[in-house]
């Protein structure tokens, strides 16, 4: 595990949220709510868990992270910039003509493993990478992030079955369980609960955590997997987390704040920063 204090993670967390809003506002487009719900997960992954960096990105033994819920790309781009994969100023081209920074991850962006965006694709790809790791007796780990609404895609369950069958204990799926999707509550759109029991029945180890708790995420993602079983971390999150008027409100799935809303959001974020004495 990489040494970084919880205070440092908290500092990064607010800076990431600031940047997510900044670049979504600049682009005039983006998936605001989901980026804010998953950014703490990415924070812990990239700053504490993943054995990957700009210098090791071509190393066959690097850890892999594939963001299956590709629409929350702004969170990924902001974290990758912070990791030094590219200069953050490039995010000013987000969604612009001929920019590689489009509204879903692409491999043209340094640090992105696979092109995603269509839901239900990340887990099968990760199963393939994890099988390759087993074949080569490599010790890298494979992580993917899915939305709870995304679990309606049947391909996830094909892959879940396959991962358990092949004993892929080098594979961890993280569910950004924010309970909302574009139409409304996931349970009202097409209820997929109980997710924990479903994954358990498919032969996975299930870990449930507060998806905004750095310590709980760190424990769940760094604890040794049960031998021969893939792990799912169900991260209970709040869509729009960190901005009061966006939290748990469905319209912020891909809402872009107005000037007034943007100013208010920054004020809130900055007040958190000041209250906690975080230096940016």
């Amino acid at each position: 595990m990489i040494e970084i204090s919880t205070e440092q993670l908290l500092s990064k967390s607010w800076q990431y949220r600031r940047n997510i809003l900044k670049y979504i506002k600049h682009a005039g487009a983006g998936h605001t709510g989901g980026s804010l719900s998953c950014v703490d997960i990415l924070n812990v992954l990239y700053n504490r868990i993943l054995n990957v960096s700009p210098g090791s990105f071509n190393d066959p033994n690097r850890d892999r992270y594939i963001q299956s819920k590709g629409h929350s790309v702004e969170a990924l781009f902001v974290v990758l910039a912070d990791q030094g994969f590219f200069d953050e100023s490039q995010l000013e081209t987000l969604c612009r003509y001929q920019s590689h920074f489009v509204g879903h991850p692409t491999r043209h962006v340094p640090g992105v493993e696979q092109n995603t965006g269509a839901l239900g694709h990340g887990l099968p790809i990760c199963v393939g990478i994890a099988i390759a790791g087993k074949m080569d007796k490599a010790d890298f780990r494979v992580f993917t992030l899915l939305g709870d609404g995304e679990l309606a895609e049947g391909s996830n369950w094909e892959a879940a079955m396959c991962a358990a069958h092949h004993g892929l204990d080098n594979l961890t799926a993280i569910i950004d369980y924010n309970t909302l999707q574009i139409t409304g509550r996931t349970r009202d759109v097409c209820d997929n609960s109980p997710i924990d029991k479903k994954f358990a029945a498919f032969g996975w180890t299930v870990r449930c955590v507060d998806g905004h708790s750095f310590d709980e995420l760190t424990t769940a993602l760094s604890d040794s997997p049960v031998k021969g079983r893939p792990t799912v971390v169900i991260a209970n999150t709040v869509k729009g987390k960190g901005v009061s008027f966006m939290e748990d409100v469905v319209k912020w799935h891909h809402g872009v704040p107005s000037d007034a809303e943007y100013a208010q959001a920054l004020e809130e974020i900055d007040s958190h920063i000041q209250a906690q004495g975080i230096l940016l």
Partner: protein
Amino acid sequence: MSAPAPGMFSQDALALLEQLRLNKGKANLEAFAETVLSLARENRNIVVVTSDSRGSGKLVPFASELPQQIVEVGIAEQNLVGVAAGLASAGKIPFAVSPACFLTARSLEQIKNDVCYSDNPVKVIGISAGVSYGALGTTHHSLHDLAVLRAINNIDVVVPADNFESVQAIQAAAAQSRPIYVRFGKAAMYDLPRTTDDFVVGKARVIREGTDVAFIATGETVIHALLAAEQLKSNGVSARVVSMHSVKPLDVDVVLQSARDCQAIVTVEEHLTAGGLGDACASAILEAGVSVGFKQVGIPDEYTVTGSQSDIFRHYGISMEGLSHQAGNLLANRNLSMTGN
């Protein structure tokens, strides 16, 4: 009791095959399976991914000999292609093998995104393609695969005609870093005349020269085009036969040369006439401004007739007689006088 089903070739066509001394080989599918096993013995990074399809894909010997190089995912074609993409991204050389009908429909989005868009060099292998499954019905036919894959960027589309082309296509697929789709039928195929040209993806094989009409055919239809060309010879018609094994990239040079050298072009494919080889040739010819008689032979846009592969071929004129007839009509329309009947 109905009469026994007629075979793929008429008595006249069988006599001509005898006269041409063409050797009857094995199914292209078997040539594929033997080739991939041979390659995998030498390269441990070659893996086969199956969706309960090892039997259909003639891969049981592969599984017995190289069990560490076969990945079984069960009847789950979407996962099959996603897993293959992941394997490719991690340095493996995966052949994703499944019936073409399911592979190019149910998992089309995985081919589009996980293979082509992410540029993972998966070898997508459609088995028992076209109407190989014949009487099993339309669920098991792939008459759309060439069209849909032509419309996706970053993938080659190859349809071998005989065992030679099958072996060569698989060797090329294993070696290339660009995604590729290769489809195979399961009927035993005659060995076509060899040309001096090497097999190259994107380069057609002209297996018979001719100057009046050119058959541009692909896959298991090529043998019928060759027989038609021989039959036309007795009528004084000089017919060229092109095995256009690469539907994408299309060998535009050979298409245009044929259009310029001949009065008429007949395209032949085991596919809907919409969106496949015929359309590809037509657009190339039209863009070049070449005037030539033109006919697309394939499966029309209708409820596909029931029956075996042979029945379906014969019904839609993918036969020596049917193709000769089409060529004759085209040439007659171009005011060419034909000798003989």
